[in-house]
């Protein structure tokens, strides 16, 4: 019965809200009229009660406080993200997670930057990561390997840049040659026994550079051809310098190379005959 009354009361309240009079509602449910009448009167009384209003000062205070809270929320959005980030709770786990996150982000960015060329957004990151790799490498042989890799990388950048921009990037060309020359100096600082193998690699690299630069000559503007010719010449000089170096110091080698160049007594065949492992046949 009570359940029924709850339902009927709710229906009557709904009808009264729609504008139907209390009497009309009660007529629909004559059996419940005695119970319903007082309840409907109370409901109507509550609806008609004069409503209390907050003081204007109360509203003004709330508006001011809300305005301050908005400014604070806008200012601390980073702190909020930080605070809401679902880090694990112990401090050391949080520190570990952050370190891992940092490493992942750095590694990811460095990986993405690998294919970049000068002018790209990620190119400075590529250069910085190369410097960091070089700095972190303690093994002198490793440093030589890195120099060779970076030098090759500059060559790839030069080709890619020429394809994309249709002009020769002289800065890359210059840094490629610089990198190769630094490699030679790095090789000289190695113990004697380790030098020949690396020097041989550098000779291969110079051959590879010369071939590529000759191929590029067909794609560049006439005024850029001269730059390429000079670069090819520098590669050739370096190659010859490599071939001549047996165990002498760099300075002596320079001296000897220029003397030989003047007399034109040195050629590939001579070197190949005296030290075949230092001068692989050119392709």
């Amino acid at each position: 019965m009570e359940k029924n009354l709850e339902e009927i009361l709710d229906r009557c309240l709904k009808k009264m809200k729609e504008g139907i009079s209390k009497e009309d509602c009660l007529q629909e449910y004559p059996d419940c009229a005695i119970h319903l009448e007082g309840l409907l009167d109370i409901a109507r009384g509550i609806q008609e009660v004069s409503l209390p209003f907050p003081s204007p000062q109360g509203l003004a205070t709330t508006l001011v406080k809300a305005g301050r809270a908005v400014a604070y929320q806008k200012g601390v959005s980073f702190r909020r993200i930080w605070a809401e980030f679902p880090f694990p709770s112990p401090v050391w786990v949080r520190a570990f997670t952050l370190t891992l996150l940092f490493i992942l982000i750095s590694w990811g960015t460095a990986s993405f930057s690998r294919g970049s060329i000068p002018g790209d957004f990620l190119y400075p990151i590529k250069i910085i990561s190369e410097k960091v790799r070089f700095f972190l490498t303690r093994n002198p042989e490793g440093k030589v390997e890195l120099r060779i890799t970076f030098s090759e990388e500059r060559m790839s950048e030069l080709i890619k840049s020429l394809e994309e921009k249709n002009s020769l990037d002289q800065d890359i060309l210059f840094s490629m040659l610089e990198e190769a020359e630094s490699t030679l100096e790095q090789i000289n600082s190695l113990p004697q026994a380790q030098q020949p193998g690396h020097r041989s690699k550098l000779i291969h690299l110079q051959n590879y550079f010369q071939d590529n630069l000759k191929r590029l000559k067909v794609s560049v503007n006439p005024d850029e051809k001269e730059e390429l010719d000079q670069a090819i010449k520098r590669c050739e000089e370096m190659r010859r310098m490599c071939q001549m170096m047996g165990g002498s110091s760099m300075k002596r080698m320079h001296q000897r190379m220029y003397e030989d160049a003047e007399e034109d007594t040195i050629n590939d065949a001579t070197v190949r005959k005296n030290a075949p492992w230092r001068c692989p046949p050119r392709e």
Partner: protein
Amino acid sequence: MEEETLEKARALEEASLARIVEEFHPRIYRYYYFRTRSKEDAEDLTGEVFLKMVKSVRKQRGNFPAWLFKIAKNLLIDYYRKKGKEEVLLKTAEIETFPASDEKDIGEFTSEELRTLLGLLNAEQKEVIVLKFIEGYSNKEIASIIDRSEGAIKALQFRALTHLRDLVKSKRT
């Protein structure tokens, strides 16, 4: 409340938030007015509701008034917890302020009298009376605010009105 205003408020646009405060401030105040014993407490709590609203409005989804009244309800629970007391029912004997008059109709009372009468209802009954007859929300909306079924709202409404009718009758006869 327009969806556009709500969207802007979620992006913390000050004008939209101010519009929401102006619209809901009196409603939230009334909700507290009938649930606390002092106007000052009602005003303080009302202010807090809007601070909480600003803090979490970015994540708000769904029915906005229901969400706002839920904040109000949770703050009211904290308020009673902090004060170290439950939202106790007044004893019938405490209602000295309620005028015993034969001339008045059964459904005729002032907001002060209604506040006193509501003090005799339990928390959920009070909540249903305020939200339904003062703020005009539907059973469905009230159900979502107080986390009860629509059937439970009808039952609470029936019991609250019956209780109030008996109280008024006992005072006026």
